[in-house]
Every structure is written in structure tokens, then in C-alpha cells.
């Protein structure tokens, strides 16, 4: 095993759990940062000069990655960065004091089985509490074992959906006693179909033959909030537009109560 060679942390792929949260110390943004980043990037647009200058957007990503190192959650098991999906919410200026809020939102073993992808939700927050930049980054991390992995929060996967189905309240079958269709549940790029016939879930699969009647989709942060909130927040999150629905919108509305019960089951299973 390569474990004996690891020098910093012992965090392997299996050591990351969806929902884990970390907060960094403060990091002040200085005039020297602005000058150095301008020199490095060559981006000397007038927006990045003068007393009210904004730091270049990617400066935030660079600082977020640096603050992540200070959390000491990644050692030699990390093999590389796979992607960065980022949004700029508000300008970063000289004098800002930034903190990194980091949450593990997805862990998924690769097909080969010897490593996995760990997705981190990262939020750069100013000392006024307002988010400056946020997004997700995915890293490839070596695995210690061959699995199996915990599926309780592997949202949008068949393994997860089977755990949710096992935790359904009997009321679900009564609610859908006259229904024949397929519920699609999607978390970012992961989608799973629950084939329902007369109240029974008769199949759980990445895709059923006729496709989903409708699919409810949200990002990993929303799914995490669904299972971690004190009360089932499905309707509240739906009302503020945190889900998108594709397929038959009428059947989606018709199944409001059933979806609420599905989320209850996902919360129990998590």
C-alpha cells in the first residue's frame, strides 16, 4: 500500500463524507495582492486599478484554493483537480477579509475502483457575511479500499434510491395507489428513475425503458439541505425555485404530497 508513504494527512477517498463542513481562518486582501495578480495575469483593465479597484475574478479562485490548503484536509492522496465550476457574486476589493466555507457535497468512486472523485462546495465569504464567490471543485483522491461505499447521501444514484425506497412510509403506497409512472430524481449529473406501479416501486434504475414521467433536479447543495434541515424543506425550496422540473409538469404537481414523502424517506435514510 502507498499509505506508508503519506506524509501529511491520512485522508483517503473513503475519509470524506457528504455534509462535512470546514471553515478557514481569515485572509485579508491587500494592495500588494492586486498588484501581484495584475502582474501575473496581465489583466490590467481599468476595473482593476484605482482606489475602488476590483480584484480579477480568478483571484478569488486562487485564494479559495490557498485557504483550502490551510484546512489541512488534503494530503498526498490527492492526485489532481478535475474541474472548477464557479460564480462571481460580488466584487472582491482591497481591504476585504475573506474566509472559505467548504462543504463536501459528493464522493464517487471511479470505475477502476482505486480512487474517487471528491466534490467540494466552496464559498468565499467577506467579514460582512456576504458571499463574494462560490462554486464547486472536484478532486481525484486515492482510495484505501475497494469499497463498498456509503450510499446514504449518494443523491441521484440507484444505490441511494434503493435506500430511500426501503425507508418509505406505507402512506406513500396509499398516496400513489392509483398511479402508474416514473419519478426521476436528479442531483447535478446523476439521475435515477423510480418506476412506480399502483403504489409500489417496481424498479430503480438509471433509466427505465419509457423514461421518467417527470424529473425533479437540483444541485448537490440543495439535496444536502433537504436531508439536513430541521424540518422537511421540500415545499419551501420548491417555492423559491431551487428545483427544476422536466417532463410532465402536471404529474409533478399531482405528486406534491408523494414527493414530500419521498424526501421524508431520504431524510430518514441519510
Amino acid at each position, binding site marked *: 500500500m502507498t499509505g506508508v508513504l503519506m506524509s501529511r494527512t491520512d485522508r483517503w477517498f473513503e475519509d470524506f463524507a457528504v455534509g462535512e463542513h470546514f471553515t478557514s481562518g481569515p485572509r485579508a486582501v491587500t494592495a500588494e495582492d492586486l498588484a501581484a495578480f495584475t502582474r501575473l495575469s496581465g489583466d490590467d483593465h481599468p476595473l482593476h486599478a484605482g482606489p475602488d479597484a476590483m480584484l480579477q475574478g480568478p483571484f478569488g479562485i486562487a485564494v479559495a484554493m490557498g485557504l483550502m490548503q490551510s484546512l489541512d484536509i488534503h494530503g498526498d492522496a490527492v492526485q489532481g483537480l478535475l474541474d472548477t465550476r464557479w460564480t462571481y457574486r460580488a466584487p472582491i476589493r482591497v481591504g476585504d477579509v475573506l474566509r472559505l466555507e467548504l462543504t463536501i457535497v459528493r464522493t464517487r468512486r471511479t470505475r477502476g475502483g482505486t480512487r474517487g472523485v471528491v466534490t467540494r462546495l466552496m464559498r468565499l465569504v467577506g467579514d460582512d457575511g456576504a458571499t463574494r464567490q462560490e462554486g464547486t471543485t472536484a478532486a481525484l483522491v486515492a482510495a484505501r479500499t475497494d469499497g463498498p461505499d456509503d450510499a446514504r447521501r449518494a443523491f441521484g444514484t440507484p444505490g441511494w434510491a434503493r435506500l430511500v425506497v426501503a425507508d418509505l412510509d406505507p402512506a406513500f403506497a396509499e398516496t400513489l395507489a392509483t398511479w402508474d409512472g416514473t419519478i426521476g430524481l436528479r442531483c447535478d449529473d446523476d439521475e435515477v428513475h423510480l418506476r412506480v406501479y399502483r403504489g409500489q416501486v417496481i424498479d430503480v434504475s438509471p433509466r427505465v425503458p419509457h423514461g421518467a414521467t417527470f424529473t425533479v433536479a437540483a444541485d448537490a447543495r440543495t439535496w444536502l439541505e433537504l436531508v439536513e434541515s430541521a*424540518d422537511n*424543506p*421540500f*415545499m*419551501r425550496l*420548491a*417555492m*423559491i425555485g431551487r428545483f427544476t422540473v422536466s417532463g410532465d409538469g*402536471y*404529474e409533478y*404537481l*399531482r*405528486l*406534491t*404530497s408523494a414527493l*414530500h414523502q419521498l424526501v421524508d424517506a431520504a431524510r430518514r435514510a441519510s
Partner: protein
Amino acid sequence: MTGYLTVGGALAFVEDHRVPGAPDAPAVLCLHTAGQSGAQWRHVAPELAAAGYRVVVPDLPGHGRSEPAPSGPVDDLGAYAAWLLALVDTMGLERFSVAGCSIGGKIALDLAVRASARLDAVVAMAADAWTGGRPSVKGLRRELADVAAPSRSDRTELGTYAVLGRAVDPARAALIATMHRREDPVVSNSDLIGWASHDLREQLGAITCPLHLVVGADDLWLDAERVRWTASRVAGARCTVLDGVGHYPMEEMPGFAAVLDGWLRELTADREAA
């Protein structure tokens, strides 16, 4: 007396809680939310009467025990305001205060625009001058047809939970949400069309009566900034954001009658100071 009155060509059901031995007790008109009825004030009204107010709780046309408006479901909150002025005229009330919530809050604001000279005080809860056109009137019109509005009762019940404040006791929340299922979807949707399309922004300057805008911090339907903006456009208006409270303060807050009594006293003092 509590019972039926003819207003606008149809029977209106009105609770009238009198103060024994005080025929001139200050009157308060209490207005319910979209699709609901005066039952929303059932715990508040007797306590408010005990505090010395004549409490008048109407069911708007098509709601609760009131007959529908002869012209059909009402989708203009101004029509409700005009109906309420006809109601108080029928009852012989020259001066009164208004407390309303949601569409009732916005109707209270509309009454302040139309009839400030007759109003001692207005408490407008869960309402702003203009929603920004939300929710979508197009979507609401589509759902006027039953065939386009599946699982309406479930959505009303769960949608009520979603806008209740975090401070509400679970048993109380369950009672509120269950009671809210009692609605005629066409009437509710028409109310919401009125809610989303009624724009009072340009008329706020006409308000000269004391006004208190109240919004729950957990109310998903309202943006507290729009409520503050509304207050900023009315001279002397008060604005309160209630922590832990959602869209239905009079149903959510235990002892709400005492809270409302306090607000009405403040507004009356404002008026006297002016």
C-alpha cells in the same frame, strides 16, 4: 350583531364582537388572507374585544359563509376595498381601524389610500405596495381551470407549512395548515391574481392615517425590503419585521390580540401627537 348583511347584492357573513356597555368602543375591521375566511381571526377576535375594541370580522365575497359576488370571483383587490366600505356604511360605522394580512393587508393599504379620513389606524401585515408581478398572473389564470390545478389541497397545506415561521409550535402549524385546505381554488386563485396585479406604488402619497406595516422574517411570499420601501413612502409609517414569524402572524403568534392592541395604541398615540 354577528350574522348576515346584504352588501353589493349578496349576503355577507360578518362577525361583530361588541364590548358590553360600550356602544362607542373603537372598531377594528379584521381582514383574512387569500381563499380563507374570518375563521383565521377566531382566537384573536374575542381577546381583542375583551381589550375594549368592537371587532368586525367579515368573510369576503365567495369566502367562508359569504355568498359569492354576483359578478363572479373577484380578481381586483380594489373591488374588495370598495365592498368593505359599503359594508361599514351598512353597519353605520363612521370611523374604524383596519388590520389585515396578505391580500387582507394589501386591501388594508388600499383602504388607507381611499379612505384615510375615516381611519384611526391601519395595520397591514404580509403586504407590500407591489409584488413585482409575482406570482405569475399567467400561471394563476391557467390554474383557474380545475384540470390544470392537480393536488390543489395538498399544495395548499404543504405550501402553508412552507411559509409559517420557525417559531410556530408544530401542533399549531398542523392546525393552521389543515384549516387552510378549506378553500375554493377558483376564489383563491382569483384573490392571488388580485394580489399579484394590484399596484399601489403611485398612490401611497394619499395615505394620511397612521400606518404600521408588519412582515414576518420567515415569510417566503414577501421581500422585507419591498415592505420597508412601502413604509418609506408614507409619512410617519411604522415598519416591523417579526423574527420567527411567517406569512400569518394572527394565526401563528400566541397572544396576538395583545400585540395588535399595542400596535393600535401606538398608532392612535401617533395620531394624537400629530
